[in-house]
């Protein structure tokens, strides 16, 4: 059996990724450039937050300390969030938002597909449920990245700027540590590095079709998934997301 602490950590990483991205995407609600996109963004956020409920719910169960998914989401501080840095990056313009979504979706679909055969039945079930939604997200984010990248001069430039900005955050998705090793030895989850080839192939295919240039260099920002060092943006986001529980501890409705 994998150590409870490692399993808890793995589940928090899965749930923190979907929670932080879900919250980020929900910030568009009522602000998107067109109504259809507003609805699409809100629905994507809803799926991600629903998946968070399953991941963090399972994390809380595994931890066995009487915490709930809500406690994990609303009562932890930034350093205890172990999402990758990519998902906490601010929305900026629609191009950055949709490109961030695409980069995450490409990884997410591959990860969930692998988790369907996890040796842990509970994880396999959450993955089988989530992968249907993630696949749908990837379909939309891929076509939108292509439409905007291979669109007008303005949309192309904005997508290229978005790619230049976000590219250094991609590598963290494939960075292994001791938790990855422990999960992989137990057949619970693949190592992060095992996903690289499949995910990068998917990403570069879409970017090529979108006429976007993959930036040179392989520098990678890290520190989100281990909690070692988040970007400044996460704390600001949590202030908004956790405001109610921080202001009125234990509030329910």
């Amino acid at each position, binding site marked *: 059996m994998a150590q409870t602490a490692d399993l808890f950590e793995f589940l928090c990483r899965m749930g923190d990724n979907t929670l932080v991205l879900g919250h980020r995407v929900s910030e568009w609600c009522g602000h998107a450039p067109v109504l*259809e*996109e507003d*609805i*699409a963004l809100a*629905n*994507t*956020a*809803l*799926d*991600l*937050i*629903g*998946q968070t*409920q*399953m991941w963090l719910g399972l994390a809380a169960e595994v931890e066995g300390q009487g915490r709930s998914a809500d406690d994990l989401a609303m009562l932890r501080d930034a350093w205890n969030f172990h999402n990758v840095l990519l998902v906490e990056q601010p929305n900026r313009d629609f191009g950055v938002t949709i490109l961030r979504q695409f980069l995450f979706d490409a990884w997410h679909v591959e990860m969930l597909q692998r988790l369907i055969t996890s040796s842990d039945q509970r994880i*396999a*079930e*959450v993955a*089988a*449920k*989530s992968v*249907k*939604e993630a696949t*749908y997200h990837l*379909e*939309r984010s891929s076509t939108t990245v292509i439409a905007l990248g291979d669109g007008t001069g303005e949309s192309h430039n904005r997508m290229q700027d978005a790619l230049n900005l976000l590219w250094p955050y991609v590598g963290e998705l494939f960075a292994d540590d001791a938790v990855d090793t422990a999960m992989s030895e137990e057949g619970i989850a693949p190592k992060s590095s095992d996903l690289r080839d499949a995910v990068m192939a998917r990403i570069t295919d879409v970017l090529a079709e979108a006429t976007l240039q993959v930036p040179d260099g392989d520098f990678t920002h890290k520190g989100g998934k281990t909690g070692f060092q988040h970007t400044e943006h996460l704390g600001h986001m949590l202030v908004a997301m956790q405001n109610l529980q921080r202001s009125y501890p234990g509030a329910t409705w």
Partner: protein
Amino acid sequence: MRPDVPQIWDWLDAVPDPEIPVISVVDLGIVRSVQWDGDTLEVAVTPTYSGCPATSIISIDIETALRDRGLNDVRIKTQIAPAWTTDWLSEKGRSKLEEYGIAPPQAAGGPERCPHCSATHVEKISQFGSTPCKAQWRCKSCLEPFDYFKCI
């Protein structure tokens, strides 16, 4: 006296989906099992989309409907596996959706025809719609927009 299970399925088939009231929760395929556990009735419900806000309302509606039939000891169990699929929509549910103006899901990934005029010349407006389970399409013949029940 405990009502028998087929009777309970009939009662559940009268509980409307809160978002699309023309179909029942049974038509939607989210009631996975009904069984007696001693004197407790256990109803297993599966969510459509993991974040669908209607899920908790559906559980409350099911409990209320069964209480109205005199069943006070009801346990609603949320079951995520196997994951819900639109293949579980009943035939009755599919035709009711279409009559209501929502094109039923198709394996091909898009509506077979416009639910208003039956023309097959249709186009996608957006991959998402007013609820997680729907997308927005438009008929190029009668020009009316319509909801399409996503196929998953």
